[in-house]
Every structure is written in structure tokens, then in C-alpha cells.
């Protein structure tokens, strides 16, 4: 036991002063150091045109938050790595960011990349907030508590599209589909088919007849045989979930067959404005599912701000929804940090569960059970036009995601 004499008291005082001198600035620095967020998105490779606007949206959100004084008096630092759209590169990028102190990861365009990163989150004690990856497995079979999705999923979106078709085209009951032969393609079709079976009887009072989907090669250069099969298909309305370059190639090759005259309406799962910007005046008339459409949320401050900024920077009048989703991912983390400023995975997970936060599409809520955001599902109808863009949006619909979302079943597959 230490004796309480003058010499020992002086020693303890000296030690305390020294400890304070060394330790307090470290503590103070920790309290004022920026929160680090790590963005993993495709900045090269075939998905670059999706990853770039996602990054821009995240950068806008970080700049806005920092300009307003940060969160809890601390700035946000956004570190960025290129996933190249590949699971191996995405995982390496995620590990690098975690090594640099990023607990909060965000971004990812591809489900394959998201699934790969999701697998390392628990061992690295980090979080991932995806802003586009749509695989249902992420919030079902492969769910883990460190994963969150800030955008919608195929169950929500494709069922919303089926609901819209039942409302607008109740007389078109024969449906077919052209879908890529991979997990995303099959889950979009399962969701759309489920939506047709649910909403046609309910809204149109009719039972739809649904053909088996025509499975298409991913990354193909020739879709003529698939188109020929689709032409023979009894389906009148057609669903497409070919994506990006594959979709454009298929649309190009389908036009001479009169496909778009014989099959209508066409519902596209997720091509945003990608195909329309490429095809311009040759763009077929179709309903397209999207993460965000600026024209649908005029008056929303975030919507108007990010649209104006992006237009000024790029000159693109019809930005893709990846812009708003990158922004929303940062806003979700910011909301969680405002609830609990520790910035650790243990603090952020409960803070994110059930969190409501503002985005370009209005208020979103992250469902506590499976970490799936409940957000509006956006669809717009695009067709060719004689204007400087070569196309126009002739109609849009915003459907409440809460109406079409699946019951939460983390760890278990979707029950159809």
C-alpha cells in the first residue's frame, strides 16, 4: 500500500500531470478527428458509368455535411477505392479501406461485389451500406448484421412494376420475359411474376397468363435467337432485365423484327437512362425502373440541389439514380452518427436499425430486422422524341415501397 506522505503525493501529482499532458491531446484529437467513410465502387471496367455518378452523389453529401459543420463537430473524410466491378478487386479495396480506419463502407454497383465484401465484414468488424446491389440474398440467405441496403430490391421494384402494369394495362394479361441467365436476372423475373400474380387479380380482376422467361446469355453480342423466341412467345407484354450494353444490343437487334410494335407494354427492370442516352431517337417506348428520377421529386431540397449540381458539372440532363443513392448512403451513416457518435460498428448497427433519414426521394427508413431500406419505387416511361436528347419522359409513377416490400426474413430465402 502506498503511504500518503508529502513525497508520494508529489510523485502522484507529477505522474498525473505527465499523463494528462500526453494523453489528453490524443483524446482531444480522437474527438475532433474526421469520421472516415470508405467508398468502394466501380471506377473502371464495364460498370464505370454507374459507379461515377454514385461517387459524385457521395461526394456531394460529404461536402454538404462538412460545410454545415460536420456531425458532432467532426468532419467526414471520404476515402475512395475502385472495385473495377469485380468481387476480387472489390474485396481487396474494402480491406484496404478498413486498414485505413474506415468502419463505414458504402457504394458497390454489383451484387457479386457486395456479396464478396459482405462475407468479410464480421471478421473485420466493419459495415457495408450498398447503394445499388440488388441481390435478394444480401438481405435473406446471406444476411449478416454488418450489411445494410439503402436502396430498393427486386422484390420491391419488380412487384411495383407489376402493380403499375395491372393499373395501367389491365387488359394485357399475357406476359413474357427476356432475362439474363444469372442470379439477378432470375430474381427480377421471380419478383415480377409474383407481382403479376398478386396484383392482376386484385386490381384488374383478371388472371394473368405468364410464359416461362427466355433466358439470355450475359455479355452476348447476338440476341437474335432470343428475340425470335420472344416473337413466338404468346406473351404480349414483355419484361426485360438485360442490363446496360446487353440491353442496348438486344433493343437494336429487336427493332427490325418489329418487336416493339408487336410486344407492348415493355417493362425494363433497371436501365435508368443508360439505354435512352445511347439510343436517343431510336429508343423504344418502355417503362423503366429506377433508383431515382429528379423530375419526380421537384421541391425536395436534396433532389433539387444534387440535380442542379450534377447538371452544372456534367451537362447531363437525365442523370441516373446512382447519383441519389451514393448521396443517400452517406446520409444514412450521418444519421446514425448523429444518434451515436462513437463511430464503431457496435455503436452504428443499432443506430442504423430503424433509422429514418432524409434523401432525394424523401424520408427513408432502414428496416431493423433485415437492414433493407423502405423507400419509394420509381418508374418512368421513356420514348424517342425529336429534341436535343432524342428521347423524353412522358410519364412517371412513384410507388410507396412499403406497399410492395417483402416480409423480413433475414437468414432465410424469400417466400414466394
Amino acid at each position, binding site marked *: 500500500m502506498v503511504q500518503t506522505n508529502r513525497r508520494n503525493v508529489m510523485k502522484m501529482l507529477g505522474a498525473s500531470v505527465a499523463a494528462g499532458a500526453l494523453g489528453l491531446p490524443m483524446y482531444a484529437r480522437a474527438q475532433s478527428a474526421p469520421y472516415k467513410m470508405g467508398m468502394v465502387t466501380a471506377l473502371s*471496367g*464495364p460498370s*464505370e*458509368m454507374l459507379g*461515377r455518378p454514385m461517387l459524385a452523389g457521395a461526394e456531394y453529401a460529404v461536402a454538404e455535411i462538412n460545410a454545415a459543420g460536420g456531425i458532432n463537430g467532426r468532419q467526414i473524410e471520404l476515402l475512395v477505392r475502385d472495385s473495377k466491378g469485380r468481387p476480387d478487386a472489390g474485396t481487396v479495396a474494402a480491406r484496404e479501406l478498413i486498414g485505413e480506419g474506415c468502419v463505414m463502407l458504402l457504394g458497390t454497383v454489383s451484387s457479386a461485389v457486395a456479396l464478396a465484401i459482405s462475407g468479410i465484414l464480421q471478421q473485420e468488424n466493419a459495415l457495408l451500406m450498398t447503394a445499388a446491389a440488388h441481390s435478394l440474398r444480401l438481405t435473406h440467405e446471406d444476411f449478416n448484421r454488418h450489411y445494410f441496403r439503402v436502396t430498393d430490391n427486386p422484390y420491391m421494384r419488380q412487384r411495383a412494376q407489376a402493380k403499375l402494369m395491372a393499373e395501367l394495362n389491365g387488359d394485357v394479361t399475357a406476359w413474357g420475359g427476356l432475362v439474363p*441467365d444469372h442470379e439477378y436476372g432470375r430474381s427480377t423475373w421471380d419478383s415480377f411474376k409474383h407481382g403479376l400474380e398478386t396484383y392482376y387479380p386484385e386490381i384488374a380482376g383478371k388472371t394473368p397468363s405468364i410464359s416461362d422467361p*427466355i*433466358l*439470355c*446469355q*450475359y*455479355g*452476348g*453480342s*447476338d440476341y*437474335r*435467337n*432470343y428475340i*425470335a*423466341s420472344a*416473337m*413466338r412467345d404468346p406473351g404480349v407484354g414483355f419484361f426485360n432485365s438485360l442490363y*446496360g*450494353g*446487353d440491353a*442496348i*444490343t438486344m433493343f*437494336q*437487334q429487336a*427493332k*427490325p*423484327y*418489329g418487336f416493339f410494335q408487336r410486344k407492348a407494354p415493355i417493362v425494363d427492370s433497371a436501365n435508368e437512362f*443508360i*439505354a435512352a*442516352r*445511347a*439510343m*436517343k431517337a*431510336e429508343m423504344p417506348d418502355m417503362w423503366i425502373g429506377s433508383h431515382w428520377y429528379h423530375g419526380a421529386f421537384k421541391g425536395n431540397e436534396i433532389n433539387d440541389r444534387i440535380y442542379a449540381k450534377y447538371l452544372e458539372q456534367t451537362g447531363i440532363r437525365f442523370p441516373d439514380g446512382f447519383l441519389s443513392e451514393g448521396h443517400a448512403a452517406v446520409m444514412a451513416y450521418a444519421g446514425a452518427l448523429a444518434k451515436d457518435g462513437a463511430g464503431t460498428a457496435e455503436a452504428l448497427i443499432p443506430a442504423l436499425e430503424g433509422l429514418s433519414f432524409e434523401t432525394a426521394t424523401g424520408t427513408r427508413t432502414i428496416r431493423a430486422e433485415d437492414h433493407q431500406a423502405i423507400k419509394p419505387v420509381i418508374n418512368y416511361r421513356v420514348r424517342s422524341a425529336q429534341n436535343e436528347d432524342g428521347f423524353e419522359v412522358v410519364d412517371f409513377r412513384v410507388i410507396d415501397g412499403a406497399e410492395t416490400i417483402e416480409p423480413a426474413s433475414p437468414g432465410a430465402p424469400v417466400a414466394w
Partner: protein
Amino acid sequence: MLADFLLIAINGLVWAMAVFLVASGLTLIFGILHILNFSHGGFVMIGAYLAFTAMQLLTGSVGIAAFLGIAALCAVAVAGMGFVIDRVVFKRLKGVDDSYSLIATYAVLLLSEGAVKSVWGPNFESVYPPEGLGGALFLGDLFLPSYALFVIGAGLAVFLVLDWWLHRTASGKIMKSVALDPWMASILGINVNAIFTTAVVAGFALAGLAGGLLAPNQSLSPMMGGSYIIQAFGVIIVGGIGNVRGAFLAAILLGLIDAFGTVFVPQFPGIFFFIAVAVIILFRPQGLLSGIR
């Protein structure tokens, strides 16, 4: 039923001729120089982007003659690039291990992708068939897109010209002799280096021509160099590497197998091409035909 059968066969032929257009330059360069040019797809892509720009510059509708002229200009432009690549890269690859050739030509492919991204950007673009090829022909129940028939005709024409050149002209026969025995050819007074350069320039011209002719066939992006190249490699391997006739036959065979497989076994789209390549190579590892023909 007969109409369906014919349509599938014609779709198979369209695929076959599109791939042959790409593979012809690839197999020509390999036949003469014995270099497997990984960058070939990149120059097909550059040809397609040049056609895209040319068609944008020509405001108003583009007719078939103008479209063919554009494709010819793409061939000339890419041939010029081939001349430079030959001087800078291919000349240095003579007598070195094959692995160096693969690395060097892959590096050229990456450079071509980077160049396309720098000039045209990363976004998708599309080109539409010229006026007169945008519609379709109706033969009873058979429905034939005009541009698809044009691709078949273009592939056939390129094959006939190449075959005639290699087998019926003095320069073609000299080229074959250099491919078979460059040392003996040089002893006989043939300028072997000039023949090598001619083969490279011709191979790149074919890449540019393929890009120009096929630009309306699919979407354009800086990644499109790879969209045909796997099939093109499959075709030249099955045909017998370096053999133009073999490549032509292999393209037709693989195109028909893939087309009928896709339609009649729709659960496995795109797999029949690879199965056919594997089976044929198993039984004829030297390819359908061998040697330069």
C-alpha cells in the same frame, strides 16, 4: 415450323459471319507471323467507334454506299495504326518466347481501351444501320432483318476476297511461302520483312473493316473489344490457327450449333459454343483444317 428452322439457321449464319469478320484478321496475322494478337478486338472496337463518329458527322440519313465507304475508311485508318504497331511492337517480338507476345499484345489491348475511353468516354453508344438496311424482308412466314442479311453477305465477300488473294494472286502465294518457310523465302530474294508488315497491315485493316461493318450490330463501349474476341479465338482454334478457310468453316459450324442449341435447349443459353469448341478440339486438336490456307 420450316420458317422457324430457317430463321434459326439464318440467325446462326449472322453470328457466324460477324465472328468470321473479326476472326479473319486474327487468323491472317497468326498464319504469317505466328503471333496471337490479343489486341485484335481492341482495333475492331476502334473501327466501330470511328464509324460511329463518321456517321454522326454525316448529318441526315446515311445510305448503304456511304456506309460501305465509312467502313472502308475505318479499315484504312486502322491499317495505319497496324503499321505503327508493327514497327513499335511486332517487330520486337520476332524470335522471342510466345509469352512475351501475349503480354505485349495484351498491353496494346489495354492501351486501345484506354484510348477509346479517353476519346469517346466510358458511356454506351449505339449506331443504327444505314438507310435501306434498317427494315426487314418477308418471305412467306420468314422474317429477315435486312442488316442481318447484309452481315452474312459482308462475311461471305470478305472470305471470297481473302481466299482469292491467298490462293490466286502472286502476292498471296508469296505470303504463304513466307509463312511456311521464311528462311527459304529470303534466300529466294523475297523481302520477308515487307511481307510480315503487309500481313500485319492487312490483319489490322480487316479489324477496322469488321468494326465499321459491325458497328450497328451491338452497343459500343470501351469494353466491346472483348465481346467478339472469345468467339473469334474459338473459331480460329477450331478452324486451324492461321487457316482462313478453316476459320470460315468453323464460324459457320459453331454459329449453327450455338443457334440451334440456344433455341432447342433454352435452359442453357450460350453454352453450346463452348461445348462444341471443346468437343471438336478433343477429336481434332489441330483444327478442322491446318496450315495456312
